[in-house]
């Protein structure tokens, strides 16, 4: 059965190559920081499942220290002046390898779920999408290597160039998910939910809707994830008051409440994979550039959601 294990080995090997590449990259003034960081990431992928949990925690702490003390740098890219000529030579054929991963992910997700070989599922049924994504990436990379007659060494060198520009931000989404687990274990959500019901004015249908909608956005911004905020805020405000006391429609309240949470996601650096990672990928000078760009949309939409919830929930 093909599961996440295969992908972890692939990722572990790729980051090991990044670590070795960093160590030999004399153009990077802080190459040892990169070596340690990508080496630890590789170790976590290759051995994480067998290491004690405390050791996995220490790996994350060590990576955070390397990043926090600003020990990571970037090498000089290999100078290249013929991109425009190459682009003209390939034309639109360049888009073929770029389209393979989404197409394979999609087809794999739709078709691989029931496939069995000798009574065993071919792909772990719970991980079909991720395994398909991995297969799509591997296939597309192979096609690109053949098409461009490039050596794998060039591919990993170019990959490392991109990874170094993302740098520690590439680990942030996974690290924030881990922080979410610590928050959950310490029941941070319940405490905040309790505070919300104690301190917010909830004495009418409108006040309850406003408190729930804004509370979802704010709590999502703190946790970085609407899924963490939803059960807490809904149990604290929506179920007992909007739905229970004032008779709001549960489907409308919850559907729009979740979307109010998504407005919070657009506003917070805690939602790193949507906000901080793209700022790094696009090499924006301002780490919060993407958040600033989407803040007007998010705030207007939050207001719109609150109005919509009040206008619809008590009517249907």
């Amino acid at each position, binding site marked *: 059965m093909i599961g*996440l294990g295969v992908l972890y080995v692939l990722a572990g090997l790729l980051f090991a190559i990044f670590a070795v590449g960093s160590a030999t990259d004399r153009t990077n003034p802080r190459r040892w920081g990169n070596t340690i960081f990508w080496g630890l990431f590789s170790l976590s992928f290759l051995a994480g499942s067998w290491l004690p949990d405390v050791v996995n925690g220490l790996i*994350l702490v060590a990576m955070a220290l390397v990043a926090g003390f600003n020990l990571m740098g970037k090498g000089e890219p290999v100078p290249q002046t013929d991109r*425009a000529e190459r682009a003209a030579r390939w034309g639109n054929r360049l888009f073929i390898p770029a389209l393979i*991963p989404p197409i394979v992910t999609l087809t794999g997700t739709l078709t691989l779920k029931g496939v069995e070989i000798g009574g065993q599922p071919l792909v772990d049924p719970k991980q079909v999408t991720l395994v398909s994504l991995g297969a799509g990436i591997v296939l597309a990379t192979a096609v690109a290597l053949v098409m461009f007659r490039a050596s794998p060494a060039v591919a990993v060198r170019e990959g490392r160039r991109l990874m170094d520009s993302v740098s520690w931000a590439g680990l942030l989404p*996974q690290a924030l998910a881990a922080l979410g687990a610590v928050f959950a274990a310490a029941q941070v959500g319940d405490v905040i939910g309790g505070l919300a019901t104690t301190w917010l004015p909830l004495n009418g249908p409108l006040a309850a809707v406003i408190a729930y909608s804004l509370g979802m956005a704010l709590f999502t911004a703190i946790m970085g994830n609407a*899924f963490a905020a939803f059960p807490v805020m809904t149990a604290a405000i929506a179920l007992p008051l909007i739905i229970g006391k004032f008779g709001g429609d549960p489907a409308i309240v919850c559907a729009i409440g979740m979307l109010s949470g998504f407005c919070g996601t*657009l506003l917070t650096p805690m939602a790193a994979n949507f906000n901080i990672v793209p700022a790094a990928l696009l090499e924006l000078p301002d780490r919060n550039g993407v958040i600033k760009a989407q803040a007007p949309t998010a705030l207007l939409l939050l207001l719109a959601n609150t109005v919509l919830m009040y206008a619809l929930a008590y009517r249907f």
Partner: protein
Amino acid sequence: MWVLLGVAVVVVGFAIRLNPLLIVVLAALVTGLAALIAPGLTPAVLLAGAIDTLAVLGKAFKDNRYISITWLILPLIGLLEREGLQERAKTLIQKLRSATTGRLLLIYLVVRQGTSALGLTSLGGHPQMVRPLIAPMAEAAAETQDPDLSDASRNKVKALAAATDNVGLFFGEDIFIAIASILLIKGFLEANGIIVQPLELSVWAIPTAILALLIHGTRLLLLDRALKREAGR
């Protein structure tokens, strides 16, 4: 109540621009230790608590490795960029005389929202689509609109390209009945004795989806006007 100290570390940490990875680790440790605050606390208990917190953090870190699988795509993107993918995307846009940054991003918004509403959320994304294709296209269109594009405007255009991917995804995916958030709502309500069908939930995501398209779409078209004003100066 003391566990909120961890949340405070997050808020203050981001405010004073500490490295976010460091914030995560500090906040986790502070939360784990703050949960132990009670009369009769000894250093030995604190030490044991710190180790327990590290274990919880480490286990969740290990269990969430799948999130970082996306980076496997970087060698492919790097290869394609080396062969001129960004340049090709720019050429395509420059050939279309009517293409403006705002219109281009508006089309991407509609496509991203539409495909997400059909459950095809993997058709976009920042490493796969925005960096190699959408951002260079938006930049190229902006350069046509304003040949002396300032760095500030260039970065704003790039940031809006990323923002458009997010807005399209967030306010499209909830229309699809089998997406994680819809299933979470259904499961949560069921646990509280309320039965709703996924379709009832996804239908009520449509009004917000339309408003998201109108609000963000208007902002994108206003960007064109701002670029034009800047070019005229």
